[in-house]
């Protein structure tokens, strides 16, 4: 007879917040068609919901200029067929996704950011964290949350500060950020995000087997991660972006008061207003080594 008060939630109940990259600039150049990608992801989301009836899945679309909640499994039941063909998850998600992509396209036309091809990761990360905070506050009983970024488009250096802030707040609330990067080069932001929050960063080699990657690595609940071999990061690009021109830099100037980073010498810190001393003679003599290699 259990004398200890029985636990209400099993160890493996999880809340998975998926950030889906819908950036049209990336998908028009990608070797993996978006439709194929979606079918892998939908099967993966279904499998998460099948694993435990208390599992929750939230999908947030990361567009070029906007972000939106696309699906929340706790607000609809996953039962039944809607138009007689597809399960509820697919119908709802696809319908919302379509609306979102059209809306996003509209906002690109209204407000072209010019130049960059990156998607609004900082926005969707913040939305995910807000949602998780809401779940944390809903009561003492909640599933264990984690974030999964399915990202393809390159990093946007101009979002550096916002993304880093999101990463640190995820770290504080012990929410791991997993990232599955399907673009061509590694993403420094996501590498850092996963490294700092204790998540997994993976760049799949075989795009046809995306579902297998997702189910093998990213379906693992936090409890089981302590027993399983998961991909380890080989090296993390720790380069920062400067606050003044939003460029990714190897070396730069750091404000000694607030640790803001600049690529050029300034008279005054733009963040905290501290006044710096005389211009140093050589960049090399005062600059701080910014690139670190882990371990």
């Amino acid at each position: 007879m259990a004398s200890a008060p029985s636990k209400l939630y099993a160890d493996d109940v999880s809340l998975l917040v998926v950030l889906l990259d819908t950036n049209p600039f990336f998908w028009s150049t990608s070797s993996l068609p978006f439709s194929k990608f979606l079918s892998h992801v939908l099967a993966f989301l279904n499998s998460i919901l099948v694993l435990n009836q208390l599992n929750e899945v939230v999908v947030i679309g990361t567009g070029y200029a906007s972000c939106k909640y696309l699906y929340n499994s706790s607000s609809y039941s996953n039962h039944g067929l809607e138009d007689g063909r597809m399960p509820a998850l697919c119908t709802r998600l696809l319908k919302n996704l379509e609306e979102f992509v059209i809306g996003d396209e509209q906002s690109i036309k209204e407000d072209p950011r010019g130049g960059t091809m990156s998607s609004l990761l900082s926005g969707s990360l913040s939305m995910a964290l807000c949602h998780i905070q809401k779940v944390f506050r809903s009561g003492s009983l909640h599933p264990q949350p984690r974030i999964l970024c399915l990202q393809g488009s390159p990093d946007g250096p101009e979002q550096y500060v916002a993304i880093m802030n999101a990463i640190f707040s995820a770290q504080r609330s012990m929410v791991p950020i997993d990232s599955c990067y399907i673009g061509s080069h590694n993403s420094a932001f996501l590498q850092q995000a996963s490294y700092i929050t204790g998540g997994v960063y993976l760049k799949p080699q075989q795009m046809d087997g995306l579902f297998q990657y997702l189910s093998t690595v990213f379906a693992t609940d936090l409890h089981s991660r302590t027993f399983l071999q998961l991909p380890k990061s080989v090296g993390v690009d720790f380069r920062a972006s400067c606050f003044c021109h939003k460029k990714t830099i190897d070396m730069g100037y750091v404000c000694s008061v607030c640790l803001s980073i600049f690529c050029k010498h300034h008279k005054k810190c733009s963040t905290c207003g501290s006044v710096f001393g005389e211009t140093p003679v050589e960049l090399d003599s005062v600059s701080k080594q910014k690139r670190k290699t882990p371990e």
Partner: protein
Amino acid sequence: MPQVKIIAKNFMDMVASLPAMKLDQLYENAFICEAILRSLPPLAKKFVLQMLYIDAPVSATSMEEWVLPDGVSKYKVAVDRLIQLRVFIETADRKRETTYRLNPMFQANLQKLLIHGEVLAREPMPSNITVRLPSLEELEAYALDQWECFLLQLINSGQAEKPSNISSSVMKVFQKGLLSQRDKEAPRLTESGFQFLLMETNAQLWYIIREYISNSEERGVDPADLISFLLELSFHVTGEAYDIDTLTEEQRYAIKDLADLGLVKLQQGRKDSWFIPTKLATNLSMSLADSSSRKQGFVVVETNFRMYAYSSSKLHCEILRLFSRIEYQLPNLIVAAITKESLYNAFKNGITADQIVTFLQQNAHPRVAERIPSVPENVTDQIRLWESDLNRVDITPAHFYDEFPSREVFEAACDYAREWNGLLWEDSKNMRLVVKADIHTHMREHLRRQK
């Protein structure tokens, strides 16, 4: 401590004990596959998902590489469970290496589930046929009411208002083990009967369902069919109406019993009749640990051993009567006192102090539940003290040895018993010793070797 006789094992242990043939047959139903998957330990779920699209058998050694050194024991538990449930099929390849592959039926069903989603055997009925469905609150109240009524009837308290139509033979089966009846005397609750009453609703439900299933063969119903129907039922949506005509003959028979237990509510329209699953039914496939259907507590215990239970339920009153003296009853309040006599009575019936304390803590009124401890410490301590008063003598089965041939043999025997942690008493002067009964065989071996 008396041995606990009721083990509220879950559904899956029962499924696992079915013969292989029956199991394979069960996996033809996609819902069972899903329910089985959900019942697995987390690591086992992970393996199933990982193997889902691998058609070739995977060798045990390469599977072991998936886990960290720390997780080997967990890995073993997971794989054993999977083999036990025939989700994994173990084979040996040419190099005599153990390989595992998923049960093909199970694999196909799960693959279908992932791609097409869940498809229920029957659709909810449109709302224009079903007039006035009960709200979720009403439904829950109905389920608990029904369950309580059943329990009252089960313990034969004679307080049940409306007799349910569970046949008396089925009722007898449920009562077996919980009640004992001597000739011509009124039936009395047994030790396990008392413990049963103090369990959580979900655990009680398990016990009853288990009895119901294991008894099904005598009623001419295939247990596998019943299990698959119950599991399927647990995937229906709470509060939706489903047409009764979609059920088979046996299922229709079973659903009447389930309605008496409060698992479903039966309603009748002008032409059709339908059933509405309650929360009790949809919680069925969950393991006990996930019982999110915790009821609100109602008991306040004061430091003066007085107990106030805000409840109008007769069942609660009966349960409290097991270990306390009911002083008076108001329409929504039961006032009782925990006394030495009432507790001795409870202990005599085989209830332990821990069970009483757990019951009081689990059912603490929300007002006091936030406090730590929710039951005053002096009360819990006193309950335990009174229990230990009764257990001043410990009984350990033991064996007595004497007439040792020499002192060496005696000393060696003592040391040997100490090594096994089984030496209870020794008298070196007269060369006599007493050892625990469970090491008796080892001891005998040891002494035989000495000769």
